[in-house]
């Protein structure tokens, strides 16, 4: 049977098992939207800005483990999507974005709402396509989902000219995808796995350092915990890796890096074997490179060969899917029946426990004092039993969320780790709440970040998403202010907002519930009310201590063991 391009689009999404797409209509995608109107295989969520469509797809993908899908129109629709694509690319989140394009006959004519979308998004996507013939559409969509969800996941964009959506051809959906140029490795090289097992058993001071790959890979998190338990090895997570190991597990040292814990950074600096699992030695993790883990041999497990030995030399690289390679490694260790040197490990743990005694995240809330932002997050943690889906924006609040909300499970912490996109939080929470309707979704944000995608409150209201937005309002761009305080002699250049909206009233204006919290004794009531709300979104505008800093902090260019701890 002959189908139009728009019908093929709908049919392909149905066959890919898509349940939900986020989008915004416009001229070039009108025919597709007409077919979306006529079908009931998947829901379409109307956002208020294309950037939000991509963040929502990202949030949906990260919570559900499925591919996020977005659709935008040509020109400004596509350019607005770029930030969201770049965000998913930096954090390796599987998303497919469809963009409308002017008709093939008009391409290159500077037509109305024309942009060179494939050119613009080339470096913001894992791959992109311009569909030039309707006969190629089904195959292209199939490949797009395949590329987005396999290997190191990432965003893929499919640009569809309007005439293609109207033209007809025989619908032929390829059941399998075979690409000679794209064959991601899944299993680790057995010889490398054996060598890794030997190194693990010989290590006296091992540390496992895991990142986003341990969260996104199937079984990555459970096998990480299994490996740590088997070896009795300490584990630290990157920002993207939080939740891969339960926050209260005794092997867990907290996050490492610029705002990592004292014990995690000291352990990494002093270990003799560092096992990187689905992590990429980002500059926010390593600090000064030539002083990073200088005494350690490095085993690096990653699905992306280009991440290995990019910043830090790997003595033993293993290319493969984290979950699969960890299983191979565990099997190998079990087969060997040997244990690592228990005396050496005991001494190593004793040293780590000493570091933990520093209690680097200690933060005392004075009864009559201003509300400390860290205290807000501690109370949110208590109120949700550590089970909420926490979505953040970017800045101080993001680091406090990472430090003071230990997660029980993977796929519960959503944050813009690589790109650092202010404005990510609220739209990502839309997708997260839809992926896990029975979970409590909390956006932890700041007064700066929240203003970058506030319009999505309208979407939250329209779809009755009971998202809790917690604004840690200090009137500042807090992280900028902190750097200006510490490194620019307190010249607070444009980091203070002389004008802020009344966020509680703003919430009411959008149809939600707004609560302003200015005193400590109002905090628990507000949180409890938010946790009980099941229908409407709620914004808690919490006035917090204005000049609180994030500690510990490794200053830019310093080594991990040169971190600055909170003043006593």
């Amino acid at each position, binding site marked *: 049977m002959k189908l139009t391009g728009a019908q093929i689009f709908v049919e392909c999404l149905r066959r890919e098992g898509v349940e939900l797409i986020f989008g915004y209509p416009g001229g070039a995608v009108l025919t597709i939207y007409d077919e979306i109107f006529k079908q009931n295989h998947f829901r379409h969520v109307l956002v208020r800005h294309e950037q939000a469509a991509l963040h929502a797809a990202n949030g949906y993908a990260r919570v559900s483990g499925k591919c996020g899908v977005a659709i935008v129109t040509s020109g400004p629709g596509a350019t607005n999507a770029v930030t969201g694509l770049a965000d998913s690319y930096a954090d390796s989140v599987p998303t497919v974005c469809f963009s409308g394009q002017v008709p093939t006959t008009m391409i290159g004519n500077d037509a109305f709402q024309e942009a060179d979308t494939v*050119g613009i998004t*080339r470096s913001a996507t894992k791959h992109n396509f311009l569909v030039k013939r309707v006969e190629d559409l089904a195959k292209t969509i199939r490949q797009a989902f395949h590329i987005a969800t396999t290997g190191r996941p990432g965003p893929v964009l499919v640009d569809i000219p309007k005439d293609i959506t109207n033209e007809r051809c025989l619908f032929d959906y390829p059941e399998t995808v075979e690409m000679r140029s794209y064959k991601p490795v899944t299993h680790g090289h057995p010889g490398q796995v054996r060598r890794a097992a030997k190194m693990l058993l010989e290590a006296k001071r091992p540390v496992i350092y895991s990142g986003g790959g341990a969260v996104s890979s199937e079984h990555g998190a459970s096998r990480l915990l299994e490996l740590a338990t088997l070896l009795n090895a300490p584990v630290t997570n990157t920002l993207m890796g939080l939740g891969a190991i339960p926050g209260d597990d005794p092997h867990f040292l907290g996050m490492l890096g610029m705002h990592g814990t004292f014990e995690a950074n000291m352990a990494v600096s002093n270990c003799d074997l560092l096992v990187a699992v689905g992590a990429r030695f980002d500059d926010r993790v390593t600090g000064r490179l030539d002083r990073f883990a200088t005494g350690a041999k490095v085993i690096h497990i990653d699905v992306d*060969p280009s991440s290995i030995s990019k910043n830090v030399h790997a003595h033993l690289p293993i290319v493969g899917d984290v979950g699969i390679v960890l299983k191979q490694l565990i099997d190998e260790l079990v087969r060997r029946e040997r244990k690592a040197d228990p005396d050496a490990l005991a001494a190593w743990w004793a040293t780590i426990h000493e570091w933990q005694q520093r209690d680097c995240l200690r933060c005392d809330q004075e009864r009559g004092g201003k509300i400390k932002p860290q205290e807000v997050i501690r109370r949110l943690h208590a109120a949700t039993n550590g089970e909420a889906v926490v979505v953040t924006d970017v800045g101080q609040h993001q680091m406090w969320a990472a430090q003071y909300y230990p997660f029980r499970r993977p796929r519960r912490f959503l944050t813009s780790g690589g790109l650092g996109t202010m404005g990510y939080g609220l739209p990502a929470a839309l997708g997260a709440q839809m992926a896990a309707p029975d979970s409590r979704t909390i956006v932890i944000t700041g007064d700066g970040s929240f203003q970058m995608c506030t319009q999505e409150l309208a979407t939250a209201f329209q779809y009755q998403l009971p998202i809790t937005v917690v604004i840690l309002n200090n009137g500042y761009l807090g992280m900028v202010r902190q750097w200006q305080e510490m490194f620019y002699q307190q010249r607070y250049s444009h980091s203070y907002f002389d004008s802020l909206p009344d966020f509680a009233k703003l919430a009411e204006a959008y149809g939600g519930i707004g609560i302003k919290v200015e005193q400590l004794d109002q905090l628990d009531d507000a949180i409890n009310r938010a946790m009980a709300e099941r229908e409407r979104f709620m914004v808690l505008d919490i006035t917090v201590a204005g000049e609180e800093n994030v500690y510990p902090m490794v200053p830019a260019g310093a080594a991990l063991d040169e971190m600055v701890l909170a003043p006593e």
Partner: protein
Amino acid sequence: MRHTITVLVENESGVLTRVAGLFSARGYNIESLSVAPTLDETVSRMTLVTRGDEHIIEQINKQLNKLIPIIKTEDISRTSHMERELVLVKVQAKDETRAEVLRMADVFRAKVVDVSDSSYTLELTGKCGKIDAFLRMLTPIGIVEMTRTGPVGMRRGCKGFAVEGK
């Protein structure tokens, strides 16, 4: 260190931009790049000359392989290989220099491909170093214009560089 990398890619629009974009985005330098379809017209072959230390060359190879339409790469500088480049050069040739130009062409075994009353256009194929030397010798006589292809290269010996399964 100079490295010559050969690359097999899907012969589709945009591949060249992806490769060039990779080099500019990551700050790698690209000395020359030549590309044309192979006998299998769905596959193109590139020869890419770049410079960098071992670490950078390793990253370049990995990043190239990460591009979806790249089928395979090989750093032929690490093997016994040959490289050839072609140059077209138009040289001033008036009364007293006409014979000199032809003598140079003869020495380098270049071909005369075009003649006018005041110029010769010569074609020469060879290793980059030979082309450089040829141009050096012609410069004092007066080069009007010149274009080089950048080298293409392959391994020596019987082993081919092809898409697997072909």
